[in-house]
């Protein structure tokens, strides 16, 4: 196997350009290993050569972010690398963020990339999901050891070898799940885990416990008689034929259905595509899901000011957190723009 072509990235300090006074220096490509890249070169041994070292000032990247990363990626691409190794950035924040951004950009171009940081470097939280970040010490005291671990993971990536668990290959968990074969059945693991828990030992859950932020309840509506109320549902109401192509599960889209001039929802005009519950009854009468009938009555009696003339609907079943949050934001923005005061959200 020919030695791999490796391009390194370092900041002005680790590239021996200078200290904070040189942090505004623009990107440059230096031949061979320079500064900290020499440790990478040494760790590579016969497996690869550092063909170039890219160096750039921390402030230059921080101030121009995307443009600077674009320049650096172009410089790297000029060397046709098999692998990009950025840093390690240790506890240096601006440097860590630059390393993460550069590795993410390189990975998008199909160039395997790895960086290294201390766990408290802000670059870890920003980039660990997209980039392999090896855990290092806080400073360069164990530079060669850290370089060896970056190189070990980098070689695996460049050779397209299977990557082991975060704890084994020494990188921060990327938050992605992948099926593997455990040594024992789930029943056996669950029983062993229960006995450990009963014995008061610490147990290691196979599913990380979620850490969802608490969402504060909004203030009550003071005067319903003058409030505009909207109806929103994740129960799967769609127009017949599902023109918005709302997915029966794992939705990425929502529908906006006008009820202007309608006393209620005509079962002949609506359907339901939700795959998470028995929809027989809401298909018979969509008001069981979206109470337009009752809301119109209350509007007529003056008990609410006005019923908003658009109903928003999607399917809330196996929907990803990311799409749920996005759709929620988009619907909320439309409601806010329409000066809606409150929402009745019906779920299933």
């Amino acid at each position: 196997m020919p030695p791999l072509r490796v391009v390194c990235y370092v900041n002005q300090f680790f590239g021996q350009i200078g200290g904070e006074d040189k942090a505004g220096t623009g990107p440059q490509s230096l031949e061979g290993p320079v500064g900290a890249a020499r440790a990478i070169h040494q760790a590579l041994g016969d497996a690869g050569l550092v063909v170039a070292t890219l160096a750039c000032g921390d402030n230059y990247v921080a101030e121009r972010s995307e443009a600077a990363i674009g320049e650096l990626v172009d410089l790297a691409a000029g060397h046709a690398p098999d692998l990009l190794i950025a840093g390690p950035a240790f506890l240096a924040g601006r440097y860590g963020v630059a390393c993460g951004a550069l590795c993410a950009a390189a990975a998008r171009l199909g160039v395997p990339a790895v960086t290294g940081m201390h766990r408290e470097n802000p670059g870890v939280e920003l980039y660990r999901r997209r980039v392999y970040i090896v855990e290092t010490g806080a400073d360069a005291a164990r530079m060669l050891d850290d370089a060896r671990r970056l190189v070990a993971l980098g070689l695996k990536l460049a050779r397209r070898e299977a990557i082991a668990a975060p704890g084994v290959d020494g990188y921060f968990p990327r938050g992605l799940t992948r099926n593997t074969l455990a040594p024992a059945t789930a029943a056996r693991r669950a029983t062993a885990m229960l006995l450990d828990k009963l014995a008061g030992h610490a147990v290691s859950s196979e599913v990380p416990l979620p850490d969802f932020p608490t969402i504060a309840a909004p203030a009550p509506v003071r005067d319903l008689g003058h409030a505009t109320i909207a109806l929103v549902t994740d129960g799967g109401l769609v127009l017949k034929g599902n023109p918005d192509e709302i997915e029966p599960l794992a939705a990425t889209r929502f529908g906006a259905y006008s009820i202007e001039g309608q006393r209620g929802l005509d079962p002949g005009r609506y359907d339901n595509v939700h795959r998470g519950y028995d929809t027989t009854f809401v298909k018979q009468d969509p008001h069981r899901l979206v109470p337009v009938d009752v809301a119109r009555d209350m509007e007529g009696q003056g008990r609410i000011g006005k019923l908003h003339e658009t109903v928003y609907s999607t399917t809330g079943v196996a929907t990803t957190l990311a799409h749920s949050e996005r759709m929620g934001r988009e619907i909320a923005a439309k409601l806010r723009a329409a000066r809606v005061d409150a929402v009745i959200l019906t779920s299933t």
Partner: protein
Amino acid sequence: MRLALEWSDVTSVASGPATRLSASALEIDLDGLRRQLERDPRLASVRLDLAHPGESCRIGRVFDVYAARARDDGAEDFPGVLGALCRVGSGRTRALGNVAVVVTDQQIDNPSTLAVIDMCGPAAELSVFARTHNLVVSARPAASAGRSEYLAAIRQAGLRAAVHLARAARAVEPDTIEVFDLPAPTRVPGDLAHLPRVAYVFQIHSHQRPTGVDEGILYGDPVRRMVPTLIHPNELLDGAVVRGFMGRAVTTWAIQNHPVIRELYALHGRALWFTGVVLTVAQATEPERVRSAAMAAGLVADVLGADGAIFTKIGGGAPHVDMAQTAALCEARGVKTTLIVEDMSTDGSEEGMLLFNFPGLDALVNVGSAQEKVALPAMARTIGTDDPAAATAFTYGSICGAIEQVGATRVMALVQ
């Protein structure tokens, strides 16, 4: 209560003039069995095939899998679904090792909700059903048979075939006898009273889709209004519960060989005291869910007096939350819990794995992601399907026996 499973190991299966077992070679009178199964007026025709371990063969449109079992002391087989009603779980039952009955669904238009079994290749590594000799029952519906009638008919056909095969073992001495003997939960000998008492909470159905009148699950009952119920584990090993009409990632086979029950039996009297099983169903409405969770937790904590409990679920998201709500109530009563969950993420992200957030539920085992894609090669022969599309896109959930929600499998989603 004492149940003896009398095992005869089978090393070869072939068609023959009569169904008989001799020196671990099983011969099956396929014609005779087919004629017997075709007597059901709900079925137009029945086709029987054999598939063997290592063959380049794919069984498509898999509906469910049954272990070959037959009661050996005059009691009824699968009471309420196949045999007349009676209680099972004590006495002697014949069992064939390395043999399974696989039932395919020949009625549904879109087979994408059904599973496949490959007898070799990468999927075979994941499924116990690639290591069993499989009798595959593929029945075409009679013109008059509705969906529910058809599914009830093919389920009975599969169970009938499973009993037919196991009865052949009556003529030989069993190779091994596996004894499941568990006293009533109060009868703990004094010198074992220090062992932690462990219960199992088994969710046997999800009412996300209500059961049909033909869909017997617990002793033939469609469990429509079932509240949490105590049951002896032997009953589950002996045919008291048959899986409903839907349920990817769970087979009746796994219930007949229930891995949690076997594990608790294996440690019973040594590392723990097995106090029994609570059956639950996942409910469709809020009051039913709250009632069920409260009653199940009460049975675990205050009737069985358990110190710890293991939970499994069946079906999708709502059952997942039902299970968690019950477990959270157990934790609140001081009962330690572990839960077996699927990775529910639809985008492969850590945040999507769980659908609940009860801080006390900190011991979770997972059976992997059913949605993760897996590439499978084409097979030389297919059974139960002539759909060539069955040779392309697969997920772990579409491989029968790769993921069993009751915990029989080793696939596990790892966060990386």
